[in-house]
C-alpha cells in the first residue's frame, strides 16, 4: 500500500515537471529540420537563419557542443549514430582526428570554388573551410606609448629582456589559443628550435594562465580588466572589440606572430538527412552567411570577396603570412608537444 502512495507522488512529480519544462523541439511536421552541431562560439543572426529557411524550406536547429576539441570528440564518440546531420567548427587542429575516424562523408559544395578550397584538407572534400581565424599576440598600445617603448613585433622580440615580465599566454593543454601559439612557435622555430625559444620566454618572465578569459580580461592591460600585463596571446580580430569612443583601437595584433586556424563544416556520415545537410553546408559557404561571421564570431570568412565590418581593414586586418602546420602533423605531434612544453615551462 505504501507503494501506491509512492507511485502517486511519483506521478504527480513527473506531471508537474512535465508542465514546467520548456517547449523543447516541437517543430512542425512539414518543415524538415537539419541539426547543425557546432562549437560554443557559434553565433548567427536569427534573420539570416530565417531567410535560409524561407528560401530552402529547411529549418536549422543549432546544437552547441563545447569548444573545437570537445566538439570533435563528441562527433567521434557518436559516429555510429550521429547527434546531428551537419557539423561546423572542427578546426585544423582537430581535423585529422575527425577525418581518420570517418566522421564526415564526402561532399563538394558548388560554393567551395569561391575561396574555401584554398584551405582544403583532404582530396575527398569531406570538410569545407568556412572561416579562418588567426591567433596572434596582442599589445596594449597605450602602455607602450606611455612608456616611450616601441611595441614588440616578432616572436624574437617577446624574448627580448626589454619586454621582461610583460607577456601572458594561455596554457596549450587547457586553452585553444594557447595551443595555437605553441604551434606557431613550433612552425616558426621548427622541431629543433622551439624548446630553446620557450626557455628564453620563460627566462623573460612569461606568465602562463589556464584560459583565454583570464589572460585577456584579467591579466591583459588593454581590455576591460586593466590587468598588469600589456602583451597577451589572443586573436587577430580582438582589436576590433577594443575600439574606444573616439573610434581608435586601444590594442593591436602583431601580424608577424600569428598562427592560422581554419574552421570546417561537413556532412556527418550516417546522418538522416544527407540531401538537406548538404544544402546547409552550401548555406554556410554562401555570401549571405559568410558576411555575418566576422561581426559575430570574430573570424574571417573563407570565401573571397566578402566585405568585412567597417573599420576591420584598419583595426583587424587578416594577417598575410601567418604560421601554419599541416593538420596531420598537428595530429601526430600534439600530445607529445604539449607534454614536452609542460615539462619545459612548468618545472
Amino acid at each position, binding site marked *: 500500500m505504501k507503494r501506491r502512495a509512492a507511485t502517486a507522488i511519483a506521478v504527480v512529480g513527473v506531471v508537474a515537471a512535465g508542465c514546467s519544462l520548456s517547449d523543447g523541439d516541437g517543430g512542425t511536421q512539414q518543415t524538415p529540420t537539419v541539426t547543425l552541431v557546432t562549437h560554443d562560439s557559434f553565433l548567427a543572426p536569427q534573420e539570416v537563419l530565417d531567410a535560409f529557411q524561407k528560401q530552402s524550406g529547411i529549418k536549422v536547429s543549432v546544437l552547441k557542443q563545447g569548444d573545437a576539441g570537445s566538439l570533435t570528440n563528441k562527433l567521434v564518440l*557518436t559516429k555510429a549514430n550521429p547527434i546531428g546531420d551537419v557539423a561546423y567548427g572542427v578546426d585544423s587542429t582537430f581535423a585529422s582526428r575527425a577525418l581518420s575516424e570517418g566522421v564526415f562523408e564526402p561532399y563538394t559544395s558548388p560554393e567551395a570554388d569561391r575561396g574555401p578550397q584554398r584551405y582544403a584538407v583532404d582530396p575527398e572534400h569531406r570538410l569545407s573551410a568556412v572561416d579562418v581565424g588567426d591567433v596572434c599576440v596582442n599589445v596594449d598600445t597605450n602602455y607602450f606609448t606611455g612608456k616611450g617603448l616601441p611595441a614588440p613585433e616578432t616572436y624574437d622580440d617577446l624574448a627580448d629582456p626589454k619586454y621582461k615580465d610583460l607577456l601572458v599566454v594561455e596554457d596549450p593543454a587547457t586553452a585553444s589559443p594557447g595551443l595555437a601559439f605553441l604551434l606557431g612557435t613550433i612552425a616558426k622555430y621548427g622541431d629543433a628550435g622551439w624548446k630553446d625559444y620557450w626557455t628564453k620566454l620563460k627566462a623573460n618572465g612569461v606568465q602562463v594562465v589556464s584560459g583565454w578569459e583570464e589572460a585577456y580580461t584579467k591579466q591583459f592591460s588593454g581590455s576591460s580588466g586593466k590587468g598588469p600585463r600589456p602583451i597577451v596571446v589572443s586573436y587577430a580580430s580582438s582589436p576590433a572589440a577594443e575600439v574606444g569612443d573616439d573610434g581608435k583601437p586601444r590594442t593591436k595584433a602583431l601580424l608577424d606572430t600569428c598562427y592560422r586556424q581554419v574552421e570546417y563544416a561537413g556532412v556527418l556520415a550516417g546522418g538522416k538527412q544527407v540531401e538537406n545537410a548538404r544544402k546547409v553546408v552550401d548555406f554556410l559557404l554562401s555570401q549571405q552567411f559568410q558576411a555575418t561571421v566576422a561581426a559575430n564570431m570574430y573570424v574571417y570568412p573563407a570565401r573571397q570577396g566578402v566585405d568585412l565590418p567597417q573599420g576591420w581593414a584598419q583595426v583587424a586586418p587578416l594577417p598575410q603570412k601567418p604560421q601554419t602546420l599541416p593538420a596531420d602533423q598537428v595530429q601526430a605531434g600534439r600530445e607529445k608537444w604539449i607534454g614536452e612544453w609542460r615539462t619545459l615551462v612548468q618545472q
Partner: protein
Amino acid sequence: MAPIGFLVVFFAWPVVAIIGRGFAAGGLDVVLGDPRTWQLAGFTVGSAAASTVVAVLAGLPVAFLLARVRLPGVGLARTLVLVPFVLPTVVVGLAFRALWPDGGVLPIVLANAFFNVAVVARTVAGLWARLDARTTDAARALGASPWRAFRSVTLPALAPAIASAAAVVFLFCATSFGVVLILGGARYRTLETEIYLRTVDLLDLSGAAALSLIQFAAVVAALVLGGLARRRRDGARIGPRGARRPRGGEWWVVGAAGVVLALLVTPIVALLTESVSTEDGWSLAGYRALTSTGEKGALQVSGWDAALNSLKVAIDATLLAMVVGVLASVVLVALRRSPARAARGLGETMDAVLMLPLGVSAVTVGFGYLVTLDALPGDLRTSPYLVPLAQALVIIPLVVRMVLPVLRSVDVRLRQAASTLGASPLRVWREIDLPLTLRPLVAAAGFGFVVALGEFGATSFLARPTAPTLPVAVATLMARPGELNNQMAYAACALLMLVTVLAVALIDRLGRGGVGEF
C-alpha cells in the same frame, strides 16, 4: 525501485559504458602503473582534505552562531552563508586569482573551502540547535570550564554531523573542477581536471577511465568513513531548542563567526563592485544589458531569459530529485528497520550507492550520455530534458542526506498506534509521517533548488544555446571580448545571488524548525 531504476538509466549505465570503452581501448595498466598518476591522486586527496579541514574550522563558529545565538542579524547570516555555494566557479576562481596572482595550492584550498563553509555551518547547526543544553549545564555545574564542557560534552554529540558534513565537503572538493583549472593551471592538477582534459581535449578514454577508477575508490572510501561516523548519531540527546544572547567567552566564538562571515562576504562585495564599475566610473550598464543579449549578441537569449530558464530548470530538477530522493529515503528507512540482517546490509549499500553521483566527474556522465542514450526511445542525447535530469542527479544525494535522518526519527510507535486504530498505510503516511517531516522536506527541496541554480559542470555540458542557465550565460559572457560583456557577466552573477538569497530566505521561513543537515 523507481529511484534505483532512475539511477541505473541516467547514471550507472552511461558511466559504465564510457569507462568500459576505456577498458576496451586498453592501456589502463600503463596509467595505473605511472607514478605521476599516484602523485595526481595524492594531490587530489591531500588538497581536498586540507579544504575540508579549513571548511570545518571555519564552519563550526558559524554553526554555533546559527544554532545557539539570539542576536539581530543571525537570520541574515543563515541566508548569506549559502551564497558562495551557488557562485559560478569561473567568477570565484578569477576573484581568488586577483588576490593570489600566481595561483598555487593555497588559493585552491581556500577557494574550495569558501564554497563549502555553508555545508558545515548549516549541517552542524541543524543538530546543534536540537542538542539538549542541560547536559552542558550539568558539566558546568560539576566544575568544567566552558572549553572543557564543549570538548567533552558538545563536541562528541556533534561529531556525527561534523563527520557527515566533512564527507560531503570532501566529495565536493575532491571533484571540483573549475577552481583547480583556473588557480592551478596545468601545474596543480587533480584527478578531476585530468579526467576532463583527457576526455575532452585528448580523447584518451582509457587514461580517463583509469583515473575515474581511482577517483571512484577515493569517493567510496570517503563515503564509508562518513557512514561509519553517522552510525553513532543516535547518541545525541535531543532537548528543547535554546538560542540566547551569548555570554562570556562565547563572544569570542561569535567574533570568530563574524570574521568567517566577513571573509565569505568579501568576494561577494568585490563581485558586486565589479558589476557596477567601468573605466568611466560607476555605471549600471551591466544590469541594463541584462535585458539584451550582450555586446554583439554574445548570448542567444537575454540575461533575463537565462534567469527564467534557470528557475524553470531548477524547479524541474528539484521536483525530480525530491520524488526520487524521498522514495529512496522511504525505502532505505524500511530496509534499516527490517529485522532481516541482509535487508539492513542492502540498505547500507544502497545508501552509499545513492551518494556516488557526487563523486563521479560530470564529463564522464556527459560523454556517457552520448554513447548510451541513443538506445532509449526519443534519443534523449540532445534533448532539453537532459539538463534537469543531470542536475537532479547532483541533488538527489543531498536530498537523501537531509530527508533520511528525519524520516528515521519518526517514532515507529506512533505509526504502529495509528495502524492499530485502523488507519490504512496511506492514511498513516498522511497523518503521521507527512506532518512530522513536511518542514524538513521543504528545507531539502529548497537546498536542492539552490544547488540546481548554481550547478555548472553538467549543465554547461548539456545546456542548449537557446536555453542557457545563468551560470552558463556568465561563462559565455566571460569568454567574449568587450567591457560590456564582462560587466554583464558580473551583473548576471549578482542576479544569481539575489535569486538565491530570496529562495533561501523563503525556504528558511517555510521550513523553520527543519534541520539543515546533509
